[in-house]
């Protein structure tokens, strides 16, 4: 028994998040029985990655504050203020807390035409594809599950997003939800192929689909976006389509379809749907950061150890997310056929071009070592 615990401890201790700044404190904590185990368990990489950062806790904080950032920034661009009066000296920073409390305590209406069990289940089920990819996205060297199939798994889960939205719409059993669902299905096919091909281009470029390794490849300043900008553009547009950001907010067009698949949801059901869209954006932004923006690379802050990579990763992800969300102040929405046209013609051909570019670069520079080689060449 003791052996097992010891082995477990050893396994945990061998895979700790290394933070030089806090090391003395941890050493102190280790002296205390129980607390020591707690600290080392928390700092155990897979646990830390999945539940603290970039996983659950970070996501939770992000969900509480990101919509505020988005609303404030959009407000600013639109010559107004955004949420403000709730604590006006802090610019209304806890606005989302009020909104979520309100959703939590509000009546949940299931109208009589809805497919009751599914109507209630789907908002929760949607969390499966939106939360699981978090396990595979590395922030610097911190990752919950490191596997050579990370990209494939994430892509598979990302491709599940629309299914659940279609489920929501179907369970709602309302005309606008129906139209929205059909549109979602159409949009799904429009971006999916190009999106996957763009990722594939990067996989070819790096010669691996292990995201930690991909991150490590871009350790210098030569990020994926510099080597294959076309793929980055395709990925970004694909992400905008996948998260239904304007100008591709076609399935839940509020002015046309009264929010499409979400039209019948109220209270916490809508609250969940509301945050899911931010979660999706978080995952795709994280993926974009790792694939194109160098993951956790950046000037190493010595005292923070591995947290340094984490911070750079979060910062970049945040910027990508803001860019995704600020699109809504910039563009009106495309019509469905126009979006399909973009997806199936421009985007697809661009992605194929990106693929060709990757193949060409790889052929010239030799597989696997591309990033390093090109990077070395430039530096």
């Amino acid at each position: 028994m003791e052996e097992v615990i010891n082995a477990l401890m050893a396994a945990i201790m061998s895979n700790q998040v290394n933070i030089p700044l806090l090391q003395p404190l941890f050493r102190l904590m280790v002296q205390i029985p129980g607390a020591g185990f707690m600290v080392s368990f928390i700092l155990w990489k897979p646990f830390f990655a999945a539940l603290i950062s970039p996983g659950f806790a970070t996501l939770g904080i992000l969900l509480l504050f990101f919509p505020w950032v988005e609303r404030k920034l959009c407000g600013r661009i639109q010559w107004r203020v955004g949420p403000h009066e709730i604590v006006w000296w802090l610019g209304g920073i806890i606005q989302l807390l009020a909104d979520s409390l309100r959703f939590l305590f509000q009546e949940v209406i299931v109208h009589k035409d809805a497919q009751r069990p599914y109507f209630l289940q789907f908002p929760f089920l949607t969390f499966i594809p939106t939360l699981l990819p978090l396990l595979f996205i590395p922030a610097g060297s911190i990752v919950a599950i490191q596997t050579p199939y990370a990209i494939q798994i994430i892509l598979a889960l990302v491709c599940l997003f629309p299914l659940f939205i279609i489920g929501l719409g179907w369970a709602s059993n309302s005309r606008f939800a129906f139209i929205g669902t059909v549109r979602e299905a159409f949009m799904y096919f429009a971006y999916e192929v190009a999106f996957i091909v763009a990722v594939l281009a990067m996989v070819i470029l790096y010669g691996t689909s292990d995201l930690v390794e991909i991150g490590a490849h871009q350790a210098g300043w030569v990020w994926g976006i510099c080597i294959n900008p076309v793929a980055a553009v395709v990925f970004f547009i694909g992400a905008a389509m996948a998260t239904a950001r304007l100008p591709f907010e076609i399935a839940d067009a509020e002015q046309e379809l009264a929010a499409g698949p979400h039209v019948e949801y109220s209270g916490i059901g809508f609250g969940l749907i509301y945050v899911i869209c931010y979660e999706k954006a978080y995952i795709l932004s994280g993926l974009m950061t790792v694939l194109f923006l160098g993951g956790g690379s950046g000037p190493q802050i010595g005292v923070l150890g591995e947290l340094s990579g984490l911070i750079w990763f979060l910062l970049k992800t945040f910027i990508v997310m803001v860019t995704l969300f600020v699109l809504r102040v910039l563009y009106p929405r495309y019509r469905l056929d126009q979006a399909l046209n973009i997806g199936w013609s421009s985007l697809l051909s661009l992605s194929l071009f990106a693929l060709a570019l990757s193949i060409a670069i790889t052929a010239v520079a030799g597989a696997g070592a591309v990033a390093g080689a090109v990077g070395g060449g430039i530096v």
Partner: protein
Amino acid sequence: MVEIKTAEGEKDRNISILKTGVLSPLKRWGVKWSLWPCHFVTSCCGVELAHAFACGFDGERLGTLNMGISRQANFIIVEGTITRKMARALRIVWEQMPDPKFVEVIGACGERGGLFWNSYNITRPSDIVPVDFFVPGCPVTPEGLLRGVRAVQHKIEGLDRTTIKFKRVKLPSEPEPGQGKENMVPSSPKVFAPTPAIKVDIRRDVEWAFGAELVKRLESELEGLYERITITDINRIAIKTLPEHLTELAGRLKSGLGVDHVKNVNVIEVPHERKYIVEYMVSGYREDLKPVIINIFTEVGRKPDGEPEQEVPSIARLWASADYSEREMHDFFGIRFAGNEWMGRNFILAPELHTPLRKDFKLDEERYVLEGETPYAPSIKPPTELELPLPPGLLEDAEANEELVALVGPHHTGSGHLRWILRMKGDIIVDVIPDPGYVHRTMEKLAENRLYIQNIPLFERANISDPINMHLGYVRTIEKALGIEVPERASYIRTIMAELSRIGAFFYDSGIFSLFLGHSTGFMYVWAIREMILEAMVRATGSRCTPSFIIPGGIRRDISREVLELIDNFTSAIHRRLRKFEDIFIYNPVFVARAKDVGVLTKEEAIRCGIVGPFLRASGVEYDVRKVEPYEVYDDLDWDITTGDAGDCLGRYMGRYEEIKESLRIVKQAVDTLKSLPRGEIISKELLGEYKAASEDIKGHLFHVYGNLVLPRGEWTTVTEAARGTLLYSIVSDGESNVPYRVRIITPSWLNLRGIVEATKGERVADFWAIYGSFGYFPPEADR
């Protein structure tokens, strides 16, 4: 059948829900800062609602995020009038919302009825849903609206209070020495002629050479079909005919003379002469016919019970533009137009309101003495059922053709205050059926019961995003009847105000258009510009949206030099923000992609459906009332008509945008001229009589001068170029009463409705909102 009625105890249910449970403080705090109003635009206060939530005041600061969908909202802001038709939607939306939910009513119409207090088609929201707070105003200011939001927040906190406190003083109790012992209550100031003599074709000798020629031509062309042809005024001809000759006469006018559209269909009931007069006002877009309005009228007998003795042949087959107005007249008077395929009900759903515009349908009279402690308001029973009927057979027909029917509105983020019935096959719209009448506030009937001067604010409410042009048209009709010349200075000020109003209306429509396409920044940017216009308006007149500033003979008061300076600055200050707006919206490639080649109306189609104003010009017809029949000082200023050829959404929009640049030119020139004009008379002394001293400011003498205004006998028709097109007023006066006998108002939005329908057919579903937005349709204006 569900009875609509606010039940006892409903009013504070929201608070009692919040007060229960251990987590009550958290619940209250959350709800307090997260009141999401569901976007339920019911009437014209919606304009100020938009201002309150746009960049001028930004309601989102308070945590109130405007949300389109009832299920996700917890707050209704009832924006003014709830008609009998809209009441059903209001109750449905309220029922759809999750608890706890709050209601704020803004605007006088939603309280005791405001200007429409004795209208036959309104209800009081407080009878339909429990209301937490009422905000007075017409419309309310954005501050008032936000004050209501604050009041609700305070109520959630536990501070349920009215936000004004009056101090009572003791009134004098001693009668003045020598005061009469008996006090008589004076009678109503309104004078109704008991047997008014109604004649719509009174001959007037005017110098109009083309008219004489035209009459000769008409006489030879219409040989045997007419009873008499009269020149009633410059550019106005009346032709009397028999109902059985109507179709043929119209056909000959169309083929022989090139008359191509109907401006107005009107019915005048003369009960004591046992007849209805049915009028068609037609005109043509041929160069020489443009200013001419030919009034073809016929008389139909009236049975003692009010029913017409015979049907009138419809001319909608000749001129499609007559179609909707014929339906409307059927709704109001019960006259059947034989051949018009749809003779159902549009505006009025209540069975007890059969043909309300007939004279035997009486409205409640004003009371001038306060009895007891409640002001007089007629008792109104709210409608008893929630159902909003669909055209019969529609669903079966759609199912047979494998089409999907979707009802857009009246509660829908992209519907405005009317319902659109979309029939779709896949992503293609097969047909769209408009269901107007949700804001039908019965202006024509009310106008027959009010003094001429009291109708100025009334008609202004038809469209408070373009208020000046609305009442300018009405006032011009009165001036035409009385033959008054407006002082030059007043005329310049009117022109400036009318153009500012036009600019404001364009930006209003532009904002709604961009919102329909999902572009909220476009909306916000123009609302900042509108805020500037309203600032100029409030400084000049004292009211942001409803100035009621133009009165017969001039304007209410002069505007100061500082305000003039401000308007002058505005014409150049607007450009900085406009350039940004251009970059982010007008030339945005996504917007261009959405609007270009969508909803195309060719010149012929546009004329056939009878659309007007900038939308007609965008299809290539060069017709602008300001050029064709110049009024005010438009003739003295240098500006151009804008036309286009495309006839698509982008063409319509850009045409209006260029027109606004012309408007800015007009304003600039007029302001420059006005600066050099000496201050002085702004109301025609001719009209003031004894009160000439008030010619610089009407303050103190409005009722003396205008209370007893009587128009000469006859029918007076004017057209005005409002922001969205030709606005037609036709006043019938008996020459004795100081209230109009009949006022007919045809608003541009009402005429444009058919254009929207025609342009939408065959387009994609999402294009509907692009087309709808490009037409700048303003439902209160259309429903009147």
